[in-house]
């Protein structure tokens, strides 16, 4: 039984040639596979979501009971708060506009179903593509206006989006209700970093980070997450802080692509 190196090498080179040739037909191949397997993917995604909710509920039963009691008490407080809030709503709207926090209510959204995460950690797929008007660079948000990612690949009926934690992702952002601005960039594997914050600014932990685009590529005021304590040496011109994203794609069945704003 001999290992025929020459023969195996020839087979390998042939396959390598075909693998390289696949790149000339990437949109057709990926689009075709998504079309065929997309419905199954979405079913598996939804099953996983349901199962994870079930396990979470079972594992946290005692905690849920306590949480339920706390929420009932909190509900009473909120009812009282609601009355007060209604009177403040008008004033609040004006303040939000002044602070440029208004996540543009005139933006056009397209609802898309999440069709799975990518094989690499920081991408995910949506079931809307070029024929639905999706283009590269569009922002993907949740109903709560949390920014999850930016569309990076578009096929006929599907698209892939890079999460903010993708190593090639970067969005300009600021700390809500302050003039502190910086850039939130991905570090891979779900990690985010708030960077380029001037050293002289006081960056408080657990502040809300929202988008503040320099160009007109996504709306301002979309929620990114909360920062932790700032890091870095005092001699460096900028300070950095880890950012905890406000949600996870796994929690959603549907997300929204901002097609215009």
């Amino acid at each position: 039984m001999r290992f025929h190196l020459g023969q195996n090498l020839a087979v390998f080179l042939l396959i390598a040639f075909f693998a390289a040739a696949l790149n000339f037909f990437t949109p057709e191949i990926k689009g075709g596979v998504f079309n065929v397997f997309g419905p199954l993917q979405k079913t598996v995604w939804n099953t996983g979501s349901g199962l994870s909710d079930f396990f979470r509920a079972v594992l946290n039963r005692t905690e849920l009971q306590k949480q339920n009691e706390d929420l009932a008490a909190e509900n009473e407080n909120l009812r009282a708060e609601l009355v007060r809030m209604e009177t403040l709503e008008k004033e609040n709207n004006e303040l939000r506009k002044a602070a440029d926090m208004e996540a543009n209510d005139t933006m056009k959204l397209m609802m898309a179903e999440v069709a799975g995460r990518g094989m690499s950690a920081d991408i995910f797929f949506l079931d809307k593509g070029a024929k639905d008007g999706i283009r590269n660079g569009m922002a993907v948000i949740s109903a709560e206006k949390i920014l999850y990612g930016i569309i990076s690949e578009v096929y006929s009926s599907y698209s892939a989006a890079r999460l903010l934690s993708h190593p090639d992702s970067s969005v300009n952002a600021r700390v809500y209700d302050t003039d502190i601005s910086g850039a939130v960039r991905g570090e891979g594997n779900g990690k985010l970093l708030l960077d380029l914050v001037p050293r002289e600014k006081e960056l408080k932990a657990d502040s809300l980070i929202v988008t503040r685009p320099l160009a007109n590529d996504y709306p301002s005021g979309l929620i990114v997450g909360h920062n932790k304590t700032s890091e870095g040496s005092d001699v460096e011109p900028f300070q950095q802080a880890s950012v905890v994203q406000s949600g996870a794609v796994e929690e959603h069945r549907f997300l929204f692509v901002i097609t215009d704003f």
Partner: protein
Amino acid sequence: MRKIIVVSAAAYLLVLLQIGFLPHLMPYEWYRYLLAFFVILITVCERPRGKLGFAAALVGGFFADVFSEGYMGTHLLLFLVLVFAIKFILRHYVRFPTARAI
């Protein structure tokens, strides 16, 4: 032929689990090499002249490429190199008593 179809289907199902099911249940680090582990396992367990490892590498690699960024063929070629390397080492340097189990 039946075994090749079963292994190919299993490779696709693993990709499906990896992109659709497991993200809900555990951190990415826990399952990122699941498909690679499967390809290695099949290659190690099959007969030295078997083709199941190649089938797993081709099908699993193809779907991994489809559901990844970057160039098509990257995973596919990596898995093939892995299978070639394992087979080469197993044939020349290693003998498992249970290698003929599958």
